[in-house]
């Protein structure tokens, strides 16, 4: 992926965050990684609100998004992002434990890039994230530059 792209992880479980980061690094990801512990934090960052870190202008992002999170869940995050004419361009990969077919369907309809199920088995989870990392480390993967402030 473009070296200047930043990987955003929205995930409330610190154990999962650590595992995802470790396995992304294992697959030689050189990109910066930022983590957010719920849906509100990630939306504040993306829409440049509140007192915490804010998204930079003209930067490149990709989001790994958990569904079940406190305050605002992943579905609401995805909905608000895809309704914004600028933020909608950010590729969003859903990383979740929910494996109902109707959910898979719904998230693709809402515009997620990919839907990945976190396997309950630790080793399989590591392997899945590593595969994701190997893919993202591909030099040819391009994510778009996101301008200015959110429009909505």
């Amino acid at each position, binding site marked *: 992926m473009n070296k200047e792209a930043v990987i955003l992880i929205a995930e409330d479980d610190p154990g999962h965050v650590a595992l995802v980061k470790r396995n992304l690094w294992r697959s030689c990801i050189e990109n910066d990684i930022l983590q957010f512990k719920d849906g509100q934090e990630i939306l504040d960052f993306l829409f440049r609100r509140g007192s915490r870190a804010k998204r930079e202008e003209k930067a490149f992002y990709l989001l790994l998004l958990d569904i079940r999170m406190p305050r605002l869940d992943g579905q609401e995050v995805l909905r608000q992002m895809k309704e914004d*004419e600028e933020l*909608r*361009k*950010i*590729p969003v990969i859903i990383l979740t434990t929910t*494996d109902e*077919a109707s959910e*898979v*369907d719904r998230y*693709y*309809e809402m*515009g997620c*890039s*990919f*839907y*990945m*199920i976190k396997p309950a088995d630790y080793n399989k989870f590591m*392997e*899945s994230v590593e*595969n*994701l990392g*190997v*893919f993202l*480390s*591909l*030099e*040819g*993967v*391009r*994510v*778009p*530059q996101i301008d200015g402030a959110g429009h909505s």
Partner: protein
Amino acid sequence: MNKEGVILIAEDDEGHFELIKRSLQRAGVCNEILRFADGQETLDFLFVRGDGAKREHDKEYLLLLDIRMPKIDGMEVLEKVKKDPELKKIPVVMLTTTDDPRTIDRCHDLGCSVYIVKPVEYQDFAEAVRKVGLLLSVVEVPQIDGMPKTKGAVK
């Protein structure tokens, strides 16, 4: 991706198609693979038109889409697919030689899942596709029901 899911490859260059197919198989992807030589063929298949092969109901599909193709190009295919309420669910991976920021921007705006620039070297290209295969082996893909809701490109 489920074993019954079908990988659609819209690619006018037969050499590239063979390389993509072999590299996916090397990554352990054993899904059925269908090739379309241009955008028109791809849309006819997806929108269930014309005399060629047609999409089946209640099946999983994923599309690897080249941009520069005869008749209808990949951008137009992406636009038509993402405008249809049913077909829009199909993950679309752009796989192209075009490395232009405006095109990258436009494709993400239209709703591609990911955009990949084809490496020029044969070995690098094969390796890149193998890595796409690794990703496909760990993601879920939705089933596409029934008829498309729109008519798409009628030409």
